């Protein structure tokens, strides 16, 4: 699943940051999930748990879902991303490559595909907490 690829990125990034900050044991990893990516939280959490490395064996994962918000560059209309209104094929295309929103979605006011995803795109590692080792 696609969630596994993103989970691998989160784990690798968390380990890199922990090393840079001399964190020996990571106790918490906070992830922001943009709604556009339509991640399955259960699969994503399972993947993260499976990919855990020894330095994060007791870490908890905290998810924050960021609702998708879009703004038309032509008429300025702002609207919310509504995954429930999409067909399965369109939903899957946007799941894999969120920029496919520009292929399938249009501004509800003027019909333009020239809009901006102002919030809710992608998966981000928001923060990690842990115990710093002795110098």
């Amino acid at each position, binding site marked *: 699943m696609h969630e596994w*690829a*993103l989970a691998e990125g989160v784990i*690798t990034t968390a380990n890199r940051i922990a090393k840079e900050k001399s964190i020996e044991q990571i106790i918490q990893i906070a992830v922001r999930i943009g709604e556009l990516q339509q991640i399955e939280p259960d699969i994503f959490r399972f993947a993260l748990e499976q990919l855990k490395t020894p330095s994060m064996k007791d870490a908890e994962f905290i998810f924050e879902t960021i609702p998708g918000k879009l703004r038309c560059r032509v008429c300025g209309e702002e609207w919310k991303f509504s995954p429930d209104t999409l067909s399965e094929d369109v939903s899957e295309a946007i799941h894999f490559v*969120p920029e*496919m929103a520009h292929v399938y979605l249009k501004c509800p006011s003027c019909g333009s595909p020239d809009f901006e995803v102002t919030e809710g795109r992608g998966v981000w590692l928001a923060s990690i907490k842990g115990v710093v080792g002795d110098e």
Partner: protein
Amino acid sequence: MSDPRLEIIGRRLEKVKKIIAVSSGKGGVGKSVVASSLALALREKGYKVGLLDLDFTSPATHVILGIEGLYPEEEYGIVPPLAHGLRYMSITYYSLDKPAPLRGADVSDAIIELLAITRWGELDHLVIDMPPGIGDATLDTIRLIPGINFLIVTTPSRVAYETVRKQLALLKALRVPVIGVIENMVMSPTAYIEEQTAKDGERYLGMIEYDPKWEGALGDTERLTSTKFYRAVEELAQSVE
């Protein structure tokens, strides 16, 4: 906040021995046909080859190679399906035949997404069909893909070569390896492009004559590989092995 995708791109490409970005300063010089034919020619030589179409707003390699009805397999990411023996990846799996009106930042995000989730496996060569110019896609592939090599396509026209000259200067400034320059669509051979390439300190790989039969072979790899155009690319493929 950190973008976790950036961390895994190198890992996705670590089993790819050589990455060749087929590029040009100008559109319409035949990058996509050279990239598609080069990928096929390398495959015929017995290499494991991937083809990635990064021209998101004007993808064409699926038309050239007659690829339809395929879809990537999901397995800890996505695995590009085999098309004519090539691991083939294109945005058209998701955009189908619809226009993808993407601005620069969206192009960058889509490139990062595809590079982060695509599992190429072991390849001898990954050929990338690049969009024209030195904008976001070119800068992103240079930034994101370690060890990328550029193969430059031009026509005999000064108009095309002047854009290529700027591209070569950029690649030199960024210390990106350039395999060489291919002169495509030659109708009346002259030494102009070869001389200019030498002046710019790059390797002139050779010319491909304009082949009027090529258009009729579009979408049919059997006919494509029997054209004069393909045989010329096949010879040039020796330079990139």
